[in-house]
């Protein structure tokens, strides 16, 4: 009997939320954010983010008007910041799916505090990522050539190209993430709808209408919960290989080419580890800010942050191993072009980018071996930002250093970004934060129903089962085996 796990004890003997929190307190804390007026800081952040979004669309408009020549891309570096940004954003998205799907499969109940925000982050990051292939085609009005649609040339896409695999992978990823996110939101929208029942005036009416429509008439029925839980399990089960496949396919864009520095079999796992690494860092950055601004410290606890820091350290070390292994294989292969590319990467004209990457990704996260660093808010905030700087440089290093010294020394070059490159990149950060700020303003940022489900009082066989063991056994014959 005593071996029957209380949900709260799933990760040891520690409470996942502040001890003694009631169901109603959780509803109030999370829904309250969408019901009260936005704090002043929200408006300041929103104004800044919206400004950068404006810069993004101006930069894209100028690009469409003038052509891709406004970017620094030129022979021999035809792929530069656009694909760097694409891979960086896609990678950031991966943590959301990892938290919502993979940790769900592994029954890591601590994920409930952060999975909603992480899933939202995934969707916004993938939107930013999808922008880049679309605008890189130059004549954006022909972007539909990427899809297997009938066109005036009467030809179809080349299905043997990893670029078309990538299109399918990323658009599937976006759609599935959206479905996953929305299905998780249905019960929480129903809660917002029911809370709006008592509200007066126009605000109440609009809230009832909007949240009521989004909740699809959810009434918490257990017959519905049964199908719902099965759906959630299946979505998690298919998202797990999906998230691994997406960044693997992204890495095929490089790995299936014949270019030294790209043509390596280590790319798929190495890209996936890097994606999770950068994504967790971005979740950390966002969570630290929102929990401070909105007083969510009792739901997103130090325990959650510490566990995330451990994952950041683990994936950072995996990435470091991959960097070392790339060098080893280049040396061991005996291929002089491979050797040259890697020596050039570390000691050539882009050595500054390479060592920035090593410092940010491999050396700095090692601080998390110490519990003091894992539980210090300023340290983890600083590390979460340096990790994302490092991961951006990783993609830049892989792409630009492999391209800039072509096979013929006569076609060597040095890539420099233009102002439009920079405006586009910082603009996507603006778009991302605009979406994220709107999300925390109007949508429950914590999965309310899931957090309630892991509270100790949610377990019907909870506290009293020691005394009423026999009775319980009779009343509920098959608990969860």
């Amino acid at each position, binding site marked *: 009997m005593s071996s029957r796990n209380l949900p709260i004890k799933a990760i040891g003997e520690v409470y996942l939320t502040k001890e003694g929190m009631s169901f109603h307190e959780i509803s109030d804390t999370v829904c309250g954010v969408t019901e009260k007026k936005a704090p002043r800081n929200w408006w300041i952040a929103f104004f800044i983010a919206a400004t950068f979004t404006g810069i993004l669309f101006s930069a894209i408009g100028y690009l469409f008007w003038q052509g891709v020549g406004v970017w620094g891309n030129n022979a021999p570096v035809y792929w530069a910041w656009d694909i760097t940004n694409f891979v960086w954003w896609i990678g950031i998205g991966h943590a959301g799916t990892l938290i919502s799907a993979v940790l769900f499969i592994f029954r890591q109940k601590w994920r409930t505090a952060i999975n909603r925000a992480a899933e939202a982050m995934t969707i916004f990051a993938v939107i930013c990522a999808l922008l880049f292939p679309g605008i890189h085609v130059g004549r954006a009005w022909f972007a539909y050539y990427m899809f297997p649609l009938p066109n005036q040339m009467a030809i179809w896409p080349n299905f043997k190209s*990893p670029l*078309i695999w990538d299109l399918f992978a990323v658009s*599937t990823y976006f759609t599935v993430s959206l479905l996953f996110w929305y299905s998780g939101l249905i019960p929480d929208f129903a809660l917002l709808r029911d809370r709006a029942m008592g509200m007066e005036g126009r605000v109440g009416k609009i809230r009832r209408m909007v949240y009521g429509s989004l909740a*699809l008439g959810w*009434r918490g029925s257990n017959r519905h*919960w*049964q199908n719902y839980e099965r759906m959630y399990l299946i979505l998690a089960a298919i998202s797990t290989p999906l998230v691994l496949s997406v960044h693997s396919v992204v890495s095929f864009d490089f790995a299936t080419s014949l270019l030294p520095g790209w043509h390596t079999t280590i790319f798929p796992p190495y890209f996936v580890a890097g994606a999770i690494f950068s994504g967790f860092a971005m979740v950390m950055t966002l969570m630290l800010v929102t929990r401070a601004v909105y007083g969510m410290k009792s739901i997103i606890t130090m325990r959650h942050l510490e566990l995330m820091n451990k994952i950041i350290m683990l994936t950072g070390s995996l990435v470091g191993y991959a960097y070392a292994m790339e060098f080893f294989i280049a040396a061991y292969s005996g291929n002089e072009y491979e050797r040259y590319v890697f020596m050039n990467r570390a000691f050539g004209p882009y050595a500054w980018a390479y060592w920035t990457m090593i410092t940010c990704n491999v050396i700095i996260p090692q601080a998390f071996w110490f519990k003091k660093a894992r539980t210090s808010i300023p340290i983890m905030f600083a590390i979460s930002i340096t990790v994302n700087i490092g991961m951006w440089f990783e993609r830049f290093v892989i792409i630009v250093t492999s391209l800039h010294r072509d096979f013929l020394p006569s076609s060597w070059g040095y890539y420099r970004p233009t102002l439009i490159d920079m405006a586009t990149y910082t603009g996507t950060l603006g778009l991302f934060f605009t979406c994220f700020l709107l999300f925390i303003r109007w949508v429950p940022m914590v999965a309310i129903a899931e957090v309630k489900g892991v509270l100790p*009082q949610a377990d019907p066989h909870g506290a009293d089962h020691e005394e009423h063991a026999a009775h319980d056994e009779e009343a509920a014959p098959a608990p969860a085996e």
Partner: protein
Amino acid sequence: MAKRRIALYLAKYDTTAEVLHAAEKVRKAGYTKFDAHTPFPVHGMDDAMGLPDSKVGWIVFFGGLTGVSSALLMMWWMGGVDYPLVVGGKPGFTLPSSVPIMFELMVLLSAFGALFGMLHLNRLPRHHHPIFESETFREATDDKFFISIEAEDPKFDLSETKSVLESTHPAHLELVEETLEEDEHEDEEEHH
């Protein structure tokens, strides 16, 4: 006067253990059209209510199958039959290079199957249900637990159903009536 119809009995409980035992009792009393309404899925409730296994998995399976086969068919016809593109001397259609897209479309259609299959099996979206006539039912998404027994249940009987529910010691018990639609107009007109 608006015509009203008895829709269901609704019992409210404060804890998960109470609602679980109540569901057991209602099932053992022989009711079939009853339901539990909880803010989150309560562990063990499916067994307490005696629900058969969910069918969502089957819908997902056929969704995935459609995804794989349509991806294969699409790439075979477009690349192998309609307009073979010769790139690097490779054949127009090959299986190995088709695997990634077959996998992605399988996942995509499985996911559609999961969400839309769940909604279909639950008969959602459904924006009106007599249970929403109860004011206290608003708490079902917050922190209270409910059992409802529908009037359509063959065993439904005003006094007997009431006594079964009373024996489970609910915090609140009410008979929910549905206002029939045609009369809603009259009602509103009177009101104005």
